[in-house]
């Protein structure tokens, strides 16, 4: 998916107009989406562009966050560090820590690299609650946003624009990094680091630079989180934070520039939207991630570009039924899975189990505003039917896709045949 200049401008305009369009509650979610998007882009610089899988990016996010919270307390939003410039502190802290950690981690590549990043994050997670002076112990550190530059930063709207400005700036930096010789060499590092060494480039130094840049941008994301929440505790070093950014980035697709950002924004939005409705959101996210890994290595943006290519090659009319079938299959299968997961969640919950122990027969469970009998066959026929129809749709979509691509291949052969003879 190519992003053209008018498209990018349109996107920026839309983001800038968002506060006027959204209610205040959703605007808060929008800030979280922006932060998650920046974090995912920073992560993908390392794992996508430089080809080094990190499982401990929470460390750099957290270091940026804690550096910022200390700066906020020390400067009080006055003097050299007014509130809008606070993410600079996060950037510096992330960069500094990234250089040290990166120097260690990039000694090795591949699997060992991944394990070292995980160990560094776990090291911080284990040590942070012990150092009360730096990380504030269990309760963490809280602070206040101070007015600066004639802005109060009291409203969500102003925080949104601050976050938006920093996220756009960071994305621009990332975009231009890709165009510099250093960015090209980072790509080469992923493809063949040995060869890069033979050509006389410093592969280790390049690895550290990519690592440090990624850590710096993660630090900015952590910083924005603190500016928005006005508090932070050592839970930012949790393995769950590292896991979320991996999942978000790959679900969006690390191969494209905006894929991780879109994936992170989408996932954050959903987790916000469904947080009241389900307790199993993380499970759905994990299943989605594994599905993407199994069948869509390019992520969701890869799906869009594949569809666009199919439309370009076969015409809209040929692809439409296929797309509808696939969409139907996806919806039906998700509906069936959600039904089963939610039912299991309710049946195995502590409340229900103690209820069932007291009652003579199994009490009904309430989901989707309807009471279902767990022991009745009719209850389980619903998801079974959904899943079976979905599977049939998926199978048929697959057969159509195969027919479509086989057709072009034979066409191409026929077209090539006269040229050969």
């Amino acid at each position, binding site marked *: 998916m190519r992003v053209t200049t008018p498209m990018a401008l349109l996107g920026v305009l839309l983001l800038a107009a968002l506060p006027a369009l959204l209610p205040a509650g959703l605007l808060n979610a929008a800030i979280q989406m922006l932060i998650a998007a920046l974090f995912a882009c920073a992560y993908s610089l390392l794992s996508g562009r430089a080809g080094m899988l990190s499982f401990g990016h929470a460390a750099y996010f957290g270091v940026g966050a804690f550096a910022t919270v200390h700066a906020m307390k020390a400067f009080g939003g006055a003097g050299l560090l007014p509130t809008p410039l606070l993410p600079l502190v996060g950037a510096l802290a992330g960069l500094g820590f990234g250089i040290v950690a990166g120097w260690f981690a990039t000694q090795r590549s591949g699997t060992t690299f991944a394990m070292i990043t995980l160990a560094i994050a776990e090291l911080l997670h*284990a*040590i942070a609650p012990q*150092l009360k002076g730096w990380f504030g112990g269990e309760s963490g550190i809280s602070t206040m946003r101070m007015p600066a530059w004639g802005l109060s930063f009291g409203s969500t709207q102003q925080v949104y624009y601050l976050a938006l400005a920093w996220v756009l700036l960071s994305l621009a930096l990332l975009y231009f990094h890709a165009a510099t010789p250093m960015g090209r060499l980072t790509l080469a590092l992923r493809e063949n680091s040995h060869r890069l060494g033979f050509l006389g480039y410093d592969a280790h130094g390049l690895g550290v630079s990519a690592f440090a840049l990624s850590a710096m941008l993660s630090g900015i994301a952590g910083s924005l989180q603190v500016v928005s929440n006005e508090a932070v505790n050592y839970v930012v070093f949790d393995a769950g934070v590292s*896991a979320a950014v991996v*999942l978000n980035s790959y679900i969006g697709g690390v191969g494209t520039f905006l894929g991780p950002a879109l994936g992170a924004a989408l996932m954050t939005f959903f987790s916000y939207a469904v947080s009241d409705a389900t307790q199993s959101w993380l499970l759905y996210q*994990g299943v989605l991630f594994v599905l993407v890994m*199994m069948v869509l290595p390019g992520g969701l943006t890869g799906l869009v570009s594949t569809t666009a290519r199919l439309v370009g090659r076969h015409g809209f009319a040929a692809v439409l039924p296929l797309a509808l079938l696939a969409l139907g299959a996806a919806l039906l299968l998700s509906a069936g899975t959600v039904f089963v997961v939610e039912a299991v*969640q309710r049946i195995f919950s*502590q409340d229900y189990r103690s209820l069932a122990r007291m009652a003579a027969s199994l009490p009904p469970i309430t989901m989707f505003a309807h009471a279902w009998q767990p022991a009745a066959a009719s209850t389980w026929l619903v998801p079974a039917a959904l899943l079976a129809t979905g599977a049939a749709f998926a199978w048929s979509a697959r057969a159509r896709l195969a027919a479509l691509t086989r057709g072009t291949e034979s066409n191409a052969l026929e077209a090539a045949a006269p040229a050969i003879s």
Partner: protein
Amino acid sequence: MDAVVFAVLNGVIYGLLLFMVSAGLTLIFGMMGVLNFAHASFYMLGAYFAYALQGLVGFAGAVVLSTLLVGGVGVVVERGFLRRVHRHGHAHELLLTFGLSFIVAELVKLFFGNYPVDYRVPKALDFAAFAVGTQQYPVYRVLMGGIALLMFAAIYLLLTRTRIGIVVRAAIYRPRMVEALGHHVQLVFMGVFGIGAALAGLAGAVAGAFYTTNPNMALEIGVMVFVVVVVGGLGSLAGAMLASLLIGILTSLAVGVDASIADLAALVGAREWAQGIGGLLTLKLSSLAATIPFALMLLVLLLRPSGLMGERT
């Protein structure tokens, strides 16, 4: 003195437990080049399966059955998931197992709740084996250590003294050549993956009863096990044993030490200075015990990047 003996004994037992989980991981890595992120999830599944089956078939039956079940899960993961993405490369496989470990943890929370379950040592095995000074040493710990040692002996003999072992070891170094000689390498891979998973499951079923069984246990032991295989050298069984024992004993001893860097500085008369700085320097070693394995790992990577017994870089 008694306390030190006690700590060393506990450390050895914990190290043997770490070895039980890391043995499968390092074998699988040696063969397939895949670091299985979900390996620690097999450990957790072992504990939860045994907990769930305990009421039906008794403790011993539950341990055996859950070992077999987890081995089955391992086979399914290899055949149904890993093999399908093999062509996308090792990074992709690592990510897939990461996703699977995430799903297993969430499924465990779904079925058993996000809190520790009441899985404990059966009454019949809950007595003291011997006494060190005034302290009683539980027989269950000895049993755990014994199972791990038996397992080590069994794997070692299987790998070095049998025909299957020769094929497996050959498949680690030259899979294509072994295939060309007419051995079913895919089946060997699946078998090793299943056995590795079963060993982790056995470790979980046995250790879950002694330590706590909760949805976080996979992550906790997983990180330790990754440290073990990196410190020991990826793919080396003996290295895994050495690193497991080292980490087990070091952490166990550190918990009992009540000194800090400031006390060390006192030897050169700099206690005041160190206490003035505070932070890391006044932190007691006992509260840093959890971080020692990571520090050890960074040290090993600096001094001997291929691990203590590793050959590959």
